[in-house]
């Protein structure tokens, strides 16, 4: 059989086998499993067939619950069906999993195993999710590596057909799903040999068909349900044997042999570690090393976890077994032990009783936890676990890989213990997301994997920040199989692709003795050494390392590559690592460039080839002197003025040392302080905006649109300028109501991302040089220190009194302090300006329910949060529940607030004798409509609380606890279109129908942005998105129209870039409306393929073409006899096609499917025309009111409403 090797990741490997052995695939995006669905969808779009020669049907559902339902249905109707998921998605599938298993239906669900959201969400890998399904009746098969993820995808599919037991096939999220490795692909011949067509026929025969109808899904009663439950036992009894049989058959076909429980180690081992998933490979390597040192140790790799075959488990153990450590990658608080541990303990009991296997006595057994949320699991930890077993009383219920200084569960380990030999090359690359480092490294792995006999592995660690994100690539290659499922911690080669990282990360920490350090920097040969921080110099000297430097940006620019330095750095890597002869490596890189970019045009190929040709001429070795002479020290990660928790805990996380934090450092319930982003000065902008007070017309549009709240405006008394730094800018305020006062626009230089949106929106032009505006971009570095001083002075200036501001006027409204600042959203984000606006207007009394998605990530991803407080320490209180339940979550907040307010009101009345009835009535009847009203009520409540302290009664004490609720609170329910249109729509619908006073803000990017651009029901017709590779064939769902159909819901559709005052009006009205409100906010996004600095022009074009309508539907107008719908008349200034061609999501369809583009673009124009016509018709209607006066007016044919 011809072996075909490919260098791919675990997701692609699993999807490859799943796709080819199924007919129907229902999907929904969730990290880290999304790429499996994306591959399936892409293969479908490309017309790839399964082993039966037909193209599987792939459909995206509205949630994993929906996907599971569709899977169940497709199975019932007789198709071979699969799905892919992880974490919360898998939880949503559980109800259907019980059904599918109960009905003995062959099916495989492929899971990239991921942590569950507990005290916090985590996208990273562990077994919490799969362990939550272990009672569903699904068989559970674990893959440990990229190779196994394709092998077991097939074995599971074969076994499910043979056993009729559905299978959950899982592998570790990220560690396996995203690891790139050289593997042997399964040919269709292997797949065909493993899948038995008669069993497929039987599956179909059992299916529902009106031609041979049956009934399934009955309701059973106490008389038979129990017996019915026991009917499947024999299938479960047979399952393990069937799986082993399939594994044996697979071994004959491929040469790769697997066992249900696979032992590796010394034949006379006395200490054994048992575990599942990618950690097995690390244990395998550690055991090999320890055996070479004469230790008698072994590892049992659990492949089939359910059904748990006790006999096979026992038979896997060597007779010499004395002690066993069972490791779980999950946590079940309150249980007697974690699940695998308990299963094994029971297995020993039963196995010994029945005499299975060769061991005769109960060994010492302990259980431990490791690797939660992709926590590193290294050989050193395996050694610690095995060392623990040497103890007379080994620690039980231990943890390994962390320091638990609270309940002292953790095992100590030696971080220096490393067994990776000299024959294996290990490299670490620090790059920026946008510079192409990861792509180049994936490509290098491919080149090495496919052109040498080496095994190769690549793993990539990404930042949780979206702007200025750092990526760390870990590469290994060598002549022996690579089983190290942990990060490189002793590297032969460390490359720093970004000079700015020098002062932030101690990258040489992991450089091995005699290793190579490659730096991309604009420094010449003679000055490079002097630019290194002292710690770098020290390590280069002490490690006897070699130091190379290249100005890759120059080479890239000169070759036409812009800021993509990937090719340049890749050439340097190959030149220095010597894995291939230099000429061959260059030829291979060139070949790969032609292969990768050929279809994108010769220019793209040419510029990359140019970069290859010019790279080496600019690569220099810098002699490492004998002495450290550097003057640069690495600055602390956060300001020394930051609060202690920020310095000691969050600061360590920023520095990349969060792994070192002990348990005691973390909050016990996932509660963190807000206002922390201000302490991390990221300095990621190359250029920052600079204000020109002479040109400025003080419209404050720049600060209104600033996505990162780094542009602020203040108006203040001239005397406040005393002590201002010399370069602090100030001018006379132009607003007539601010006569005699001063005005300043100030930029936070170290928090700015340099997106440039402010410059694009500035309407003022320099009178003598029209290219300049009132705000212009200038290099950050020369400005950094001066502007830092100016910013600090600006912060100390008094903030405007909210009571005096006309909030419906943007210039005045912008004097309000943003309580959402410096988020880690993408530079130029289209969502965050809306959040910032909300925080300015209502943040000091807002509770925020935030659906999972981009906004929950830049809003709540540790270490820092942008949600902050004002000088009175008030600010938005924020939480994220789930993706699917956010509207309900917010409704719960509203109910709690209302109930507590009601209770407080009752208590006030009960205490009215003591407090004075008039005062109580004043508090109870306060209108709280304006900022001044709210201010006064706060004063009253403060007074009340003071008074209550002197009243000795239970009612007074109770009232103290709820008195703050007497001040108006608002609830904002925030999320993206994936939440609002798809997964959370049911809840959203229910919440807006509840009539309760909540505000929903839909940040509509028209695509699942956070998970990488999958189609939602908000995606417009003709847009290319994942799961819509051929352009979305259907029109965008009209969520606003659905909401309006209730009649009592305030609905607004806004686009800040098209009409900012309309947006402001909508926010004010939505909050003022005493009922449910929903604002659908057009949010531009990188996922749309647009130029971010000019993204507001896209918003404008969307409105000017009629693609996006601006309207407000205010039910309160009905009482005045007015039409509730106020439509900003569609301008129709430009055709839809002109707008569509501004965005890659549409335009790329003209390049990939020109015919479809033409048709869909024409239809999009028709959609827009129809929609405009319909809205115009509705907005023009005379409103028939229940109001008697209006009715009278109508009867006299007087003008009514609009």
């Amino acid at each position, binding site marked *: 059989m011809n072996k075909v090797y490919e260098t791919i990741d675990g997701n692609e490997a699993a999807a490859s086998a799943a796709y080819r052995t199924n007919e129907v695939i229902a999907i929904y995006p969730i*990290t*880290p499993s*999304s790429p499996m669905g*994306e591959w399936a*969808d*892409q293969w479908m*779009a*490309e017309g790839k067939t399964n082993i039966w020669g037909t193209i599987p049907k792939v459909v995206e559902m509205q949630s994993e619950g929906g996907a599971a339902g569709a899977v169940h249905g497709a199975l019932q109707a007789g198709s071979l069906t699969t799905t892919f998921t992880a974490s919360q998605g898998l939880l949503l599938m559980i109800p259907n999993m019980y059904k599918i298993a109960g009905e003995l239906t062959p099916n495989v669900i492929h899971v990239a195993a991921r942590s569950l959201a507990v005290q916090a969400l985590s*996208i990273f890998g562990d077994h919490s999710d799969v362990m939550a399904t272990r009672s569903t009746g699904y068989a559970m098969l674990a893959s440990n590596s990229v190779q196994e993820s394709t092998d077991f995808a097939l074995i599971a599919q074969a076994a499910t057909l043979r056993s009729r037991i559905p299978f959950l096939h899982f592998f570790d999220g*990220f560690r396996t799903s995203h690891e790139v490795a050289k593997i042997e692909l399964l040919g269709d011949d292997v797949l065909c040999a493993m899948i038995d067509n008669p069993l497929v026929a039987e599956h179909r025969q059992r299916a529902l068909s009106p031609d041979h109808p049956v009934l399934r899904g009955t309701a059973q009663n106490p008389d038979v349900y129990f017996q019915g439950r026991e009917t499947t036992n024999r299938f479960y009894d047979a399952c393990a044997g069937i799986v082993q049989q399939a594994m044996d058959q697979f071994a004959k076909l491929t040469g790769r042999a697997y066992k249900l429980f696979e032992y590796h180690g010394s034949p006379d081992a006395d200490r054994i570690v048992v575990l599942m998933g990618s950690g097995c490979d690390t244990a395998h390597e550690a055991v090999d090393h320890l055996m070479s040192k004469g230790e008698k140790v072994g590892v049992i790799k659990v492949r089939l976890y359910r059904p748990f075959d006790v006999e096979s488990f026992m038979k896997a153990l060597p007779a010499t077994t004395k002690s066993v450590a069972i490791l779980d990658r999950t946590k079940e608080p309150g249980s007697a032990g974690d699940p695998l541990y308990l299963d094994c303990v029971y297995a020993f009991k039963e196995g010994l009783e029945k005499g299975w296997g060769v061991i005769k006595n109960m060994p010492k057994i302990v259980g431990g936890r490791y690797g939660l949320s992709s926590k590193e699991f290294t050989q050193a930890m395996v050694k610690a676990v095995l060392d623990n077993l040497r103890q007379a009383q080994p620690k039980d219920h231990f943890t390994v890989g962390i320091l638990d200084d609270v309940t002292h569960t953790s095992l100590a380990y030696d971080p220096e213990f490393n067994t990776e030999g000299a024959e294996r090359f290990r490299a670490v690359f620090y790059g*920026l*997301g*946008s510079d*192409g*480092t*990861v*792509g180049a490294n994936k490509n290098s792995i491919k080149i090495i994997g496919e052109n040498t006999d080496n095994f190769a592995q690549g793993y990539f660690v*990404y*930042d*949780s*920040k*979206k702007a200025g*994100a750092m*990526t760390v690539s870990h590469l290994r290659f060598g002549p022996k199989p690579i089983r190290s499922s942990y990060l490189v911690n002793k590297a032969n080669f460390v490359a720093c692709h970004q000079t700015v990282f020098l002062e932030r990360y101690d990258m040489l920490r992991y450089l091995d003795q005699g290793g190579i350090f490659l730096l991309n920097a604009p420094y010449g040969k003679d000055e490079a050494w002097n630019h290194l921080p002292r710690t770098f110099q020290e390590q280069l000297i002490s490690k006897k390392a070699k130091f190379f430097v290249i100005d890759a940006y120059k080479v890239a620019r000169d070759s036409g590559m*812009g800021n*993509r330095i990937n090719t340049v750095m890749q050439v340097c890597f190959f030149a220095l690592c010597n894995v291939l002869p230099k000429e061959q490596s260059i030829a291979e890189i060139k070949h790969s460039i032609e292969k990768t*970019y050929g*279809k*994108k*045009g010769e*220019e*793209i190929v040419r510029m990359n080839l140019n970069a290859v040709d010019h790279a080496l001429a600019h690569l220099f070795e810098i002699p490492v002197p004998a002495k450290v002479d550097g003057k640069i020290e690495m600055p602390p990660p956060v300001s020394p003025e930051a609060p202690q928790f920020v310095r000691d805990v969050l600061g360590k996380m920023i520095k990349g040392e969060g792994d070192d934090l002990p348990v005691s450092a973390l909050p016990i319930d996932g509660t963190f302080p807000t206002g922390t982003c201000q302490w991390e000065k990221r300095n990621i902008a190359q250029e920052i905006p600079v204000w020109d007070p002479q040109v400025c017309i003080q419209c404050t549009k720049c600060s209104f649109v600033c996505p990162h709240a780094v542009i602020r405006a203040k108006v203040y008394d001239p005397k406040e300028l005393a002590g201002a730094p010399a370069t602090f800018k100030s001018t006379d305020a132009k607003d007539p109501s601010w006569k005699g006062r001063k005005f300043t626009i100030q930029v936070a230089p170290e928090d700015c991302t340099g997106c440039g949106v402010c410059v694009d929106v500035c*309407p003022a*032009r320099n009178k003598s040089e*029209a290219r300049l505006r009132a705000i212009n971009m200038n290099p950050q570095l020369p400005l950094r220190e001066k502007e830092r001083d100016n910013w600090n002075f600006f912060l100390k200036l008094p903030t405007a009194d909210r009571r005096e501001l006309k909030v419906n006027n943007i210039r005045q409204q912008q004097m309000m302090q943003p309580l959402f600042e410096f988020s880690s959203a*993408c530079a130029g984000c289209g969502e965050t300006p809306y959040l910032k606006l909300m925080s300015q207007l209502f943040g000091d009394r807002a509770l925020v329910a935030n659906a999972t998605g981009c906004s929950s*990530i830049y809003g709540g991803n540790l270490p820092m949060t942008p949600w902050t407080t004002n000088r009175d320490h008030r600010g938005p209180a924020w939480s994220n529940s789930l993706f699917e339940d956010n509207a309900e979550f917010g409704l719960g907040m509203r109910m709690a607030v209302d109930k507590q307010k009601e209770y407080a009101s009752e208590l006030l009345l009960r205490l009215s004798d003591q407090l004075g009835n008039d005062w109580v009535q004043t508090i109870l009847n306060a209108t709280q409509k304006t900022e001044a009203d709210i201010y006064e009520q706060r004063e009253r409540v403060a007074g009340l609380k003071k008074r209550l302290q002197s009243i000795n009664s239970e009612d007074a004490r109770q009232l103290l606890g709820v008195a703050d609720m007497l001040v108006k609170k608002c609830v904002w329910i925030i999320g993206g279109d994936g939440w609002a249109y798809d997964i959370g729509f049911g809840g959203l619908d229910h919440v807006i129908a509840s009539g309760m006073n909540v505000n929903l803000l839909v940040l509509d990017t028209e*695509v699942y*942005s*956070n*998970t*990488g*651009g999958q189609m939602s029901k908000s995606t417009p017709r003709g847009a*290319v*998105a*994942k799961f819509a*590779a051929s352009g979305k064939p259907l029109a965008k769902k009209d969520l606003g129209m659905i909401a309006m159909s209730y009649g009592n819901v305030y609905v607004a559709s806004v686009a800040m870039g098209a009409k900012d005052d309309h947006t402001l009006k909508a926010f004010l009205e939505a909050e003022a409306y005493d009922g449910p409100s929903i604002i659908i906010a057009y949010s531009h996004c*990188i*996922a749309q*393929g*647009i130029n971010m600095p000019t993204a507001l022009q896209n918003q404008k074009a969307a409105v000017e073409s009629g693609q996006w309508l601006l309207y407000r539907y205010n039910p309160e107008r009905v009482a005045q006899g007015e039409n509730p719908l106020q439509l900003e008349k569609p301008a129709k200034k430009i055709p839809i096609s002109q707008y569509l061609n501004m965005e*890659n*999501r549409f*335009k*790329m369809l*003209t*390049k*990939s*499917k*020109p015919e479809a583009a033409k048709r869909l673009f024409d239809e999009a124009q028709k959609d827009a025309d129809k929609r405009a016509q319909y809205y115009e018709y509705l907005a023009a209607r005379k409103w028939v009111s229940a109001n008697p006066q209006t009715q009278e007016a109508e009867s006299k044919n007087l003008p009514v409403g609009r």
Partner: protein
Amino acid sequence: MDLTTNYLGMKLRNPLVVSASPLSDDLDDIKKMRDAGASAVVLRSIFEEQLRLERFELHHHLTSNTDSFSEALNFFPEPSEYHLGPDDYLEHIRKAKKAVDIPIIGSINGTSLGGWTDFAKVIEKAGADALELNIYAIPTDPDQTSDEVEQTYLDILKAVKGTVKIPVALKLSPFFSNLSHLARRFDQIGANALVLFNRFYQPDIDLETLELSSHVLFSTPQAMRLPLRWIAILSQRIKADLAATGGIYSAQDVVKMLLVGANVTMFASALMESGLSHLRTVEKDLQDWMEKNEYESVQQMRGSMSQIHCEEPSAFERAQYVRAIKSYVPAKGN
């Protein structure tokens, strides 16, 4: 009445040709042009620079922000193939050739020598009857001499002529030091026709935003004076055919151009304003005029008023302008 004329070695049923414009983007419109009397259609130019920029743009959008954030390693599905070349254009030629029996002339605007010849080759292969080179560049480099600019034009023409067998027309701007000399050199290289003149997009200023705007203006009837003069000057002095374009709206305009020596007259703005059926009116008016003035054929009148054949050759030269001013006598009194 014989309206036929020869252009680019083809015998056309009349001298009314639709010039390169978006009008020819739609196949149905090309049929309508034929029905209205167009004797040939020049398709809208294919712009090498635009294709190139679009490739860069696509590459940029497909690669930027990728491999940065763990949940979103990219944002678009990667199609297995792209239609980034002139495929659509070539398909359009093929379809147009099938749809109508009048000549279809392809048009290119290139930026590199390779681009010119590559496109020329594929356009010929797609079945175009002839090719129009829309050389469109505004030299602004102060170090580049007029000679060098002209040499670029010559190089392009030479390269294209060496690549294709179909006739090649050259669409020129009027901004040369001595167009007669240059025209002769084009002639020597083998240009089959000169199309006079190309009209550049001229920028405007939006006073509201103080930004440059670039909306396209239709050509005005006055614009035809310039090609009229140069066709008159070049007619019978070079072998290449001459096509008049710019400001031609009516049959009278056509007649004038024919009289000075144009083989064909080209229409775009007029059709955009008055619709494709306008050609029918022009053809009829042309016939009427010829009948009224007793011309038997277009061939007969063509070039009868060229500089060589006209009564007052110097009228086409600069002196004309001087005289015009001299002859302008202001009205007496106030």
